[in-house]
Structure formats: C-alpha cells, structure tokens
C-alpha cells in the first residue's frame, strides 16, 4: 500500500467499517510520515468536532427576517371569476402571502380552524415582537382595525390548494354545494372572522405592518376575493379545513400534502385515482381502509399521508 492509498483510507469516515486494516497498519508501521499524518488527522478531527459552542439564540429570528426580506414582490392578484371554482383564483394569491414568514403572526381565529394545525413556534414570534423596531409606536388606526381585523387565517388561505385537492375524499361537490354526513361537523355560518380582543388585534396589526407592502396588498385582496364567493362555496372549503385541522398536527400536514399530491397528478391519473377513492366511499366503513390500502396510489404515500387519508375515509358518510 502506498502513502497516498493509506491517507485515502485514513480520511474516509467509513473506512473503519470497511475492514481490511492490515495493509494500513503495516504501512503505518513502516512509514513515519504517514504515522505523523495519522496523528495530525486525528487531532484535526477533534478540533473540527469541537465547534465553538451552542447555537446562537438569535438564529431563528435572523433566519426568519432573511426569509421575509427575500420574498419577491408578487404581482397583483387577478380578480377571480365568481362563476368558477374559487380555488383557482385564490391559490396563486395565497401562495405569495404565505411565502412571507410574517404570516406566522397573522394566524388568526379562522372560525372553522379552532383546532388547527399546531401554531408557529413561540420562539419565532416572540423575538420579532420585542425587537424594539417601534412598529407598535404608532397607534392602530380605524382603517387598520377594519382591514387587519377582518383578515382570515392565513394558514387557511394558504391551504386552499390542498383543500381543493382533497376533493375525492369529500362527497361535497363545489358546484352543487357541500354535503355533510353525520361524522362531519357542519361548519357554522361564518361570514367574517370572529372579533378579536384589543390585545390580539394589536398583535395582528403589528404582524401585518411587518409584511412587505406587496404582501399586505395581496393578503387584503385575497381576503376580499374569498369573501366575495358564494356562501356555500366558502362553507365547503371551511368545512374541509375544519375536518383537516381536526386530524391533529401530523395528520393534518399529511392531508395537506395528500391534497397537493392529488392536484399534481396528470389529468388521466387524477381522474382514475379520484374514481377509485370515490368508489371506496360507497363501501361499508369497515371495508374502506383495507380496500384503500390495496390501491396503488396508497402505496406511494408517506405514512402521514396514508394515516390522514384513512381518517378521512373512515369519517366519510
């Protein structure tokens, strides 16, 4: 074994598991230069692993600030056609809004999302609120109160695409209005978000002020556009949001991924999978899961996605 081969073995982290050390040992016994290199390499490994200590406390805050500042200025949302599926016009608009990390602070009391997915880590929100930026120095105006107080939950708006993708799991047809079975909680009539306490509104205004102007405009436009849709279509989406949110954080995330995955299928495949899932819904509840697991589409999902799908199927009327 040559010096080069020996050193190649010495620097390979997997070398220890590979066996065949005898030639390396033999070479080291004979070569003082490689013995010296081996000692130096070991010491370098120790220095590298040591690092400098703990992760800085402001790491999270600075990453989020950078993410916010990196949000590109989005284009103005196109007014959606009222007679068409509401999702189409909203998804693109919601995308740009959700892209800003400021949404974390704007998670609001979307009425049908009381059991929503786990909130953002407090460590994200708290430092932003207390960084002395002075954003709260100016009082909340009536206009801000009207605009920000009426905003819907950004998580809900950001989930519209996923909710639309879950169509096969719900009997409701967006064109004909929702149908709710006994296991599905009927959403309350929710023409506007629940009024906030003064403190909650102040927090929400602060979060809103922190968003880039383009995101503020887009959020307002999106909220206004969603509010303009027929009430039954709003209720359909809010009902789905309620069902998905109630699954729990992990499975709710799985359901959202599942919805996105369904929407990303090629049209032919999506039609086939949709048909298969809808057929499952005609089976007795005790047979649905076993049949679902036998579908090729099911085998391609993650554990979270499968669990979410099974819960939705089990609860289907």
């Amino acid at each position, binding site marked *: 074994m040559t010096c080069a081969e020996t050193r190649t073995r010495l620097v390979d982290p997997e070398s220890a598991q590979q066996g065949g050390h005898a030639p390396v040992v033999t070479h080291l016994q004979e070569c003082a230069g490689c013995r010296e290199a081996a000692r130096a390499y070991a010491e370098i490994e120790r220095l590298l692993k040591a690092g400098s200590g703990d992760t800085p406390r402001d790491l999270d805050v600075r990453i989020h600030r*950078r993410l916010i500042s990196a949000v590109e200025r989005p284009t103005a949302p196109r007014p959606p056609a009222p007679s068409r599926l509401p999702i189409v016009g909203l998804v693109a608009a919601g995308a740009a809004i959700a892209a800003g990390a400021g949404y974390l602070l704007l998670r609001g009391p979307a009425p049908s999302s009381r059991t929503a997915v786990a909130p953002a880590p407090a460590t994200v929100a708290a430092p932003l609120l207390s960084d002395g930026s002075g954003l709260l120095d100016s009082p909340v105006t009536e206009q801000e109160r009207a605009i920000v107080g009426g905003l819907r939950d950004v998580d809900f708006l950001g989930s519209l695409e996923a909710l639309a993708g879950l169509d096969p799991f719900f009997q409701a047809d967006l064109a004909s209005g929702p149908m709710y079975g006994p296991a599905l909680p009927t959403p309350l009539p929710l023409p506007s978000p629940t009024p906030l306490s003064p403190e909650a509104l102040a927090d929400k205004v602060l979060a809103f002020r922190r968003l880039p102007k383009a995101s503020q405009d887009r959020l307002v436009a999106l909220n206004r556009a969603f509010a303009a849709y027929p009430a039954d279509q709003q209720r359909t989406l809010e009902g789905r949001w309620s069902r998905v949110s109630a699954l729990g954080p992990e499975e709710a995330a799985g359901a959202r991924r599942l919805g996105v*995955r369904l929407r990303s299928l090629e049209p032919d495949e999506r039609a086939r999978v949709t048909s298969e899932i809808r057929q499952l819904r005609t089976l007795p509840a005790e047979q649905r899961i076993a049949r679902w697991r036998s579908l090729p589409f099911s085998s391609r999902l*993650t554990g979270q996605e499968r669990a979410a799908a099974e819960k939705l199927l089990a609860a289907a009327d």
Partner: protein
Amino acid sequence: MPESMHDADSGDLLLVAANDPLALERLLGRWRDLLYAFFERAHEPSGAIDLTAETFVRLRASAGRFDPSVAFPVWLWRIAAQVLSEAPPPPVTSVPAARLRESAAARTALVRASVAGLPPSAAAALLLTRIARLTVAETAQVLDAPPSEVRRLLVDAMDRLAGALEPLLELPASLPPVTPPVPPPLPPPLPADGTGSRTS
C-alpha cells in the same frame, strides 16, 4: 417510487413548493442547527447565521424544482455547499502561539480561518463528511464528483489543515489532570546545632 418520497423532508419540501408555511417551519426546525454548525466551522457566528439563512432562502426558492428522486439531504447540502463556496472568505487570522495557549476563542478562530482558507471543494468535502456526516458516496452526489475525487479532496484538505494548524497541533490535546502535588519526603530533622548535613 423512490425511497425519498417516503421521507418527511422530501414531502415537506414538496409542500413548500405549494407555499405551505408550516412545511418550511418543519424543515427549519429539523435542519437549522446542523446547517449552522456546518457554516460555523468556517465562518464566525454572525456570518454563519447569514449563510444558514441564505441556504433556507435558496431552499425555498428551489422547492418548485425539487426532484423527489433526489434524496433531500443531497438537495439541501448541494445548496449549502454552493452557499459556502460563494461566501467571501473571512480575513486571514494570525494568532500568536502564546494566545493560542490562553484562549479557546483564539484556537477556534484559527480553525475557522484554516478551514475557510481551503479550496472551496476541499472545504465542502471536509465539512460535508465531518459536520453534515454524509458518507463519501453522498458527498460525491452533492459535489457531483466521483467518490475517488472526494477522497482526494479530503486528503488535500487534511494535509493543508495539518500545515495551517501546526501551532495548534503541537499543543497538548488537553491539560493534564489536576491532582494534588505529592510532597517530597521530609528531610530528616537537622541537628540542633545546625551543622548536620542532609543526606538521603
């Protein structure tokens, strides 16, 4: 279906492409500290934070192009390696040997400067295998190079570091254990007149 499709990180990156804010938060939570450690070995903490943040910005921007057939770690570390290679190197640090003995911060600064002074691909190979704990094969995927080239880069990195860190490598790895000094045997008492000689 590729194994990566069953990976939570891959799934979350697909959701990031669909502007799912919670998915980005989950990725941040899982990868933030390791990414910071990766950059912190070559840059001082504030710079390392900036590079970590830049990696997440690019990760988010790349989500729409994410190919689920590529393992998520390969995707992520490819971005991180690119960010590392583009970062301006920190100023060259010259630390007197005496200061190295006294100050852990000085030793850390010297290690950082030495790693940052490596050729970019060698630094990336070293940090990917030592800090990100990728295998040589995975590192080869990240760097788009054959494994043999990665091993060559690692030897190059180690040899260069051995030279740059020479004053540090000569120091003892750690201080000797602190033990109470053993007193020498007491000499026999002197004769009362003080003329006796000490003999052992």
